[in-house]
């Protein structure tokens, strides 16, 4: 089976379940519904030999509905092809099926998404925070979480304080100007 045949088979098998398909620089992106994830993931691994899960990431489209977007980056060693599966879930649902039994590497990726974005994974064997400590009350990569952080306190475990931004964040703007003009400066977010 070639790369083109694999995508054709995916189209044929899940015709109406694929919401959209985009091609960009040999990377194919499928938008699917959250409920169809496991079915399509298993099919992609077993029938289309997308045997390698590169990454799972999440996007917070704050202010839009549905708010969260989850992106599965698949790679096929035999076809040397990328496949990207995107799905969106609303904040009220806040839960999506795990793929950690399909690709074991998903285990820690899903824990990181849970830690940073607060999205739960149904069926995950060990859904604990991975970077912050158990009991930290916030999800820091959400758009409504301030850059300088929020105060928290867990006696004998950890605490956090609000960071002084000193007029920051300090941002560099890409340009061909001299280093003096390019160097990081305090630029308030509204500018």
């Amino acid at each position: 089976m070639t790369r083109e045949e694999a995508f054709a088979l995916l189209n044929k098998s899940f015709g109406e379940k694929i919401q959209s398909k985009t091609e960009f620089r040999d990377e194919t992106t499928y938008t699917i519904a959250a409920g169809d994830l496991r079915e399509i993931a298993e099919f992609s691994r077993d029938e289309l030999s997308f045997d390698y899960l590169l990454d799972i990431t999440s996007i917070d489209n704050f202010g839009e509905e549905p708010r969260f977007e989850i992106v599965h980056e698949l790679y096929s060693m035999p076809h040397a092809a990328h496949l990207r599966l995107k799905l969106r879930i609303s904040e009220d649902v806040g839960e999506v099926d795990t793929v950690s039994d399909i690709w074991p590497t998903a285990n820690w990726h899903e824990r990181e998404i849970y830690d940073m974005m607060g999205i739960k994974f149904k069926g995950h064997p060990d859904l604990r925070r991975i970077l912050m400590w158990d009991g930290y009350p916030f999800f820091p990569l959400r758009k409504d979480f301030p850059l300088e952080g929020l105060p928290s306190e867990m006696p004998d475990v950890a605490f956090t304080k609000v960071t002084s931004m000193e007029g920051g964040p300090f941002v560099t703007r890409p340009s061909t100007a001299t280093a003096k003009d390019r160097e990081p400066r305090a630029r308030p977010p509204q500018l």
Partner: protein
Amino acid sequence: MPETHPTAYDSKIEGNVIFTRFDAALNWVRKNSLWPMPMGLACCAIELMATAASRFDIARFGAEVMRFSPRQCDVMIVAGTVTYKMALAVKRIYEQMPEPKWVIAMGACASTGGMYRSYAVLQGIDQLLPVDVYISGCPPRPEALLAGLMKLQEKISRERSFAKQKPELVERLEEALS
């Protein structure tokens, strides 16, 4: 350093007797045998290792005995970014060190949080521990760490160690002498 080594010198008894203040002798012993606690948390720890290795050789300043047990350490070298997750662990290790003890904040992160103006990073270890010497740099060169160590040695040599350690005894002695 005439102030810290007020020795009386007599050529007739050279090599046998030295007159000095007890503090000066005690501090001289302490400052030339600092056993560091290598609190390596980020890239500064790589420079700390380089400082200990042959090219820079921290042994020239008597601080080569890196101990991985806080019970045997004199100076904690906080080398790297202190995250909030790590902060209380650093504090606990500091508290396990026996007195007298000193702290070197090595690099921008340990001193102020550095470039991490972030929800996850403690903005300077001096919010938890009493820091004696701050070293700038990101990361500092090994020479900078050695310079910081020498600054700490200077500071130690000026301390009133005996009075600090045995205040009651000093008081009784002063009463008896007056």
